[in-house]
């Protein structure tokens, strides 16, 4: 399935062992085709008083790269490059010092930096572009192009080869590298990224992003789909741009807008539209669909091909289901307030397709704390809910589905294992720390990082079995990935590439 999808989705198909996009392929199911990944490794200790890893204390470490101070982006690996989003606290480029968001491209072989894409902050503070968050989006690599959504609300296509082969596409990279009004640096082919095109969602569409723009775009055929992060303002109630789209389609070759949702999502948004779009293949007589866990707490299926309505190319809704139980929305006829522990939530996790069903669970900004959750399994052909599971708390983690078992982490720090067909709970593992990232399944092992900086390895299957724990010097907010036999773990401050040797 994975290989077939890669062929379908990518102009230049990635190798089976690559990890070219968030969720490894369009189904977003974090299960590797590889048979195994390292289980014996140690990130080592930092040299006292520095942020350098003492390599003599590490085990099974192929290379390690210093990131910024906050890293929420998930690595992607293809074409011999490892891309990850972070911030600029470890400044590498002359003239770019302070709070910027970055995509860093490392050489897969040895971890040396090939180029960085530099994004200045919007400057409005926490409301639109939270200080120091760094790029949260995972860059999707398709052939020689990387597609990423920046914290400024831009969708950007990057030349994977950097400027080394000339400045392709737009040539205004330098003036977009710093905030308006600052001295424009001279483009440096030795480190600066080559931007092919750029689409600014706030400027072009009037989108008002809440806190940050976070989604990982999805390329299917000639189109790129992304959510816009449209949401509330400081008040967390007022929606300053309720008619701006929350989900759009661009021409992946030009960056031109070719479709947008027009189902009123911007008016119903509880907080923000941060979830990344997913995809389901043609199934049960229904065509392939775009999946979206939206800011109103509903899971949507859209047709992939836009249709013109009212003079605009729009994405046609096929179905929607509420990700909340009715009792999360309303009690005794009165609405339950958002952000209260018993109240309704939106989707932040990414919908996953596996074995004919779509899985996703609701959650909220971790800053809102724990609360009631719900994991739903939906038949994308009919748009009907097959089962739900309310034993889970709020989550922003995306599920993994492997051999009939769903592995679903929650913010409370638990990993829930459920029967994928029925939703019957199999086991729950407690980590004791908050979980932001998602679980990776490789062969017989589940890898799961947490806020305490612990990477837990568990056995796949119907019984809880902890295989081991590895402690890292910084919290893990992103998700581990595996490519070409190497396990990548990004903590807040470092990217570790473990080969187990």
């Amino acid at each position, binding site marked *: 399935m994975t290989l077939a999808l890669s062929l379908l989705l990518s102009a230049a198909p990635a190798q089976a062992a690559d990890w070219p996009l968030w969720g490894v392929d369009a189904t977003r199911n974090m299960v590797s085709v590889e048979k195994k990944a390292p289980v014996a490794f140690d990130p080592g200790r930092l040299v006292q008083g520095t942020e350098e890893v003492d390599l003599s204390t590490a085990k099974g470490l192929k290379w390690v790269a210093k990131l910024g101070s906050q890293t929420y982006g998930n690595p992607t690996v293809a074409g011999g490059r490892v891309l990850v989003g972070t911030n600029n606290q470890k400044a590498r480029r002359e003239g770019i010092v302070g709070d910027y968001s970055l995509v860093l491209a490392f050489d897969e072989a040895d971890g040396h930096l090939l180029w960085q894409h530099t994004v200045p902050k919007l*400057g409005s503070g926490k409301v639109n572009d939270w200080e120091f968050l760094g790029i949260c989006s995972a860059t999707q690599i398709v052939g020689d192009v990387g597609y990423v959504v920046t914290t400024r609300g831009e969708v950007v296509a990057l030349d994977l080869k950097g400027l080394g082969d000339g400045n392709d596409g737009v040539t205004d990279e330098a003036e977009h590298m710093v905030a308006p009004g600052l001295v424009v640096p001279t483009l440096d082919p030795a480190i600066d990224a080559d931007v092919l095109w750029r689409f600014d969602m706030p400027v072009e569409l009037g989108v008002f992003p809440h806190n940050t723009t976070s989604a990982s775009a999805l390329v299917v055929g000639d189109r790129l789909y992304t959510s816009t992060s449209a949401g509330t303002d400081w008040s967390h109630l007022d929606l300053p741009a309720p008619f701006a789209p929350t989900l759009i389609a661009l021409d992946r070759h030009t960056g031109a807008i070719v479709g947008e949702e027009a189902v009123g999502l911007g008016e119903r948004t509880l907080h923000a539209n941060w979830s990344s779009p997913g995809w389901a293949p043609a199934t049960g007589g229904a065509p392939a669909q775009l999946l979206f866990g939206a800011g109103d707490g509903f899971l949507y299926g859209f047709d992939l091909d836009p249709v013109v309505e009212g003079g605009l190319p729009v994405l046609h809704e096929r179905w929607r289901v509420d990700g909340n139980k009715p009792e999360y929305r309303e009690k005794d006829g009165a609405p339950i307030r958002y952000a209260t522990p018993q109240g309704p939530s939106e989707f932040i996790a990414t919908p996953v397709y596996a074995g004919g069903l779509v899985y996703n669970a609701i959650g909220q900004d971790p800053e809102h704390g724990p609360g009631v959750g719900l994991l739903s399994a939906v038949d994308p052909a009919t748009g009907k809910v097959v089962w739900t599971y309310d034993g889970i708390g709020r989550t922003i983690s995306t599920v993994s589905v492997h051999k009939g078992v769903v592995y679903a982490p929650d913010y409370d720090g638990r990993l829930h294992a459920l029967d994928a067909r029925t939703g019957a709970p199999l086991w729950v593992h407690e980590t004791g*720390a908050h979980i932001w990232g998602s679980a990776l399944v490789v062969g017989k092992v589940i890898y799961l990082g947490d806020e305490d900086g612990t990477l837990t390895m568990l056995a796949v299957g119907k019984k809880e079995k902890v295989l081991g724990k590895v402690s890292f010097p910084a919290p893990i907010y992103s998700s581990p990935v595996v490519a070409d036999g190497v396990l990548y773990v990004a903590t807040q401050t470092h990217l570790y590439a473990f080969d187990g040797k």
Partner: protein
Amino acid sequence: MLRLLASLGAVCLALPAHAGDWAAWRGPGQDGRSAETGLPAEVSAEGGALLWTAELPGGGTPVVWGDRLYAWGFRRGQANDAWETLAAFELSTGRLLWERPFRDFLSDIVYERYSIGAPAVDRETGNVYVQSSAGDLLAFSPSGDRLWTVSMMDAWGRLTFPNGRTGAPVVDEDRVLVHGITASWGREGPARDRFYAFDKRTGEALWSSTPGVQPRDSSWSTPLVVEQGGHHAAITGTGCGEVIAIDARTGEGLWRFPMSDGGVNHTVVTDGKVVVAAHNLENLDSTVTGRIVAIDLSGPLEPATEGAPVLRKERWRRDLAGFSSSPVLDGDLVYQVTPTGELVALDLADGHTVWEVKLGPDQLHASPALADGRLWVPLFDGTFAVVKAGRDGGGVLSTTKLGGKALGAPAIVDGRVIVHTTERIYVWGDGRPVAPVTPAPPVARSKGPVVSARARPAEVLLRPGEKKAITVELLDAEGRVVEVVPAESATSYVPPGAKVVSSMNARFEKGALVAPPDAGLTAGAWKVTAEGYEATTRGRTVSGVPFSEDFESAVVDQTAKDGSLFGWPPLPWIGARFKWQVVERGGSKVLGKTIDNMLFQRAWTFLGHPDEQGYVIEADVMSDGDRRAMSAVGLVNSRYLVALKGNQRLLEVSSNQDRLKVGVPFVTEPGVWYHLVASVQARPDGTSVVRGKAWKRGEPEPADWTITVEHPNGHTHGAPGVFGFTPNNLHRVYVDGLRLSKLPEAL
């Protein structure tokens, strides 16, 4: 300053054994330590040691003075109604003695993040002070009488933030100290984390101080007041990302220690040689987040071009974090709870970890207290853990799960352990009698000699025809008041570097500044003399009704970055600088919202007296825009906003959006002027009726109001103002023909 360095360290740290005294949130030593012994062996939400509990959601720490417990909490009413309240309980019985409600207004506070902080009791008078989440500084007598109110938002330009969090005022000698991010007028127009001192009896402003630099964040750190180097110093974290020391008597900046690229929120502790501080955001000199540092007070001070001199010396630093949970000092140990819920004991000498224990998944604001050899540690998730203190400590003695989340610190007094959660107050103990307290004596005047003078009040606000006596406080070398004498003269002057040449329309007469009946809206500075001393103050005259402003008299001679010409907004307006400009539009001068700085994409601006009531405000308003996006423009009347919201296609009445938000469909076209009218009528039954009306300029005025909203327990007064919100700074909004008039009796 050399004098300061030579004598740093003279800090008295003996733990005072003040029975019955937990008058401030960190206790009598301001450090979270209590001398109480014989405390319960175990506490639980329903356990035997529970003396009483009371339902009152809150986010901070109760304070105790004698048999009186004051708690700052909030109550929920019908629908979305909620209000903050100061509640007075009898400590011995749990009997509620009185409550005094106060309401949120024009703030961004979300998700009921109310009452995060604490009241403070004056040990001399027993009066109690609290700063509401919307910024009102309130003074109450022990019997609950409102003594005075300072509206920090519309008088001093205090900004609010979505998380609320005002911390605790500090009652020090005759002053009440607060700080926050403010942007008001003139030299205090740029946003800074400023400190203010008000007379504890009258609320009169004594001084304001700007010891820091451009803020990176907000901060609600509560100052720690200690004797240091001959100064009565207030040390606190700020939104500049610094720990700052000011002279608590004069506001003079003593030193600042830059440590973070975000706000420093907790209350620091000191042994007189080092100040232990923590934060959880970016460091200035590393690429990791969070740090705990022991600031070495013996370090040299570097002069700075802005703000107080800079102190950089550290005894030690650790890559551990503390967000807003405050540390506790225990001899040669310091305890800190990290954001991931670990209680860590560090050696004060070198910062090494003596022990650590994970108590819960996370910690936000709640702080531990130390008493009876134990650390009492409330956690964000409602866990209340008791841990053995000391070098051989770290053992968890008990844990219990309380109702709600814990955001404050325990108060430990009279054999009682008190914790306030987001659901209720818990009081544990053996029920021993509550000890009486002895009021502190009045603050003695200094015998001198006099070395400097300070005009009082620090800022004057006059309506037409009003007058205010100006006095001069003669101060000794330590900033103590020797004598207060009437001002002999007051002369208007323009401070050097002022961007706008302006004077306050008032005359000095019989020791007072007097505003004429037609004073208008003016602002300026004064030089004041008395007994051979000179001091400065400043002030504004603000208009009552009627008032009009068409901006035609503004001087448009400034050049913007894009080459366009603009004029400064009226100097007396609060929070206008850099957010509004007078620009030419269609042959007329109008007020235009700036769109060159994303930090200022929204502007709340006040132009009148905070006590103004019973008026109508109206103006011509317009938004630029296109098919995708427009902006919002509105008028503020008595703490309500009536706004035309182009993107939403609404005419909306709101205050805090969570408390009141009612809109009616109203489509505005970009580039078209509308006339907007807003009135507020406070009815005797406590309901306020907010009315709004809008129509295209030049067309006949509609007979009916476009929107009418009845707000039970509504706001009755507040400064008039203008509002502009230019999302993504794409499209400007404009205001012209602003008028204030008396509310018609026919309403």
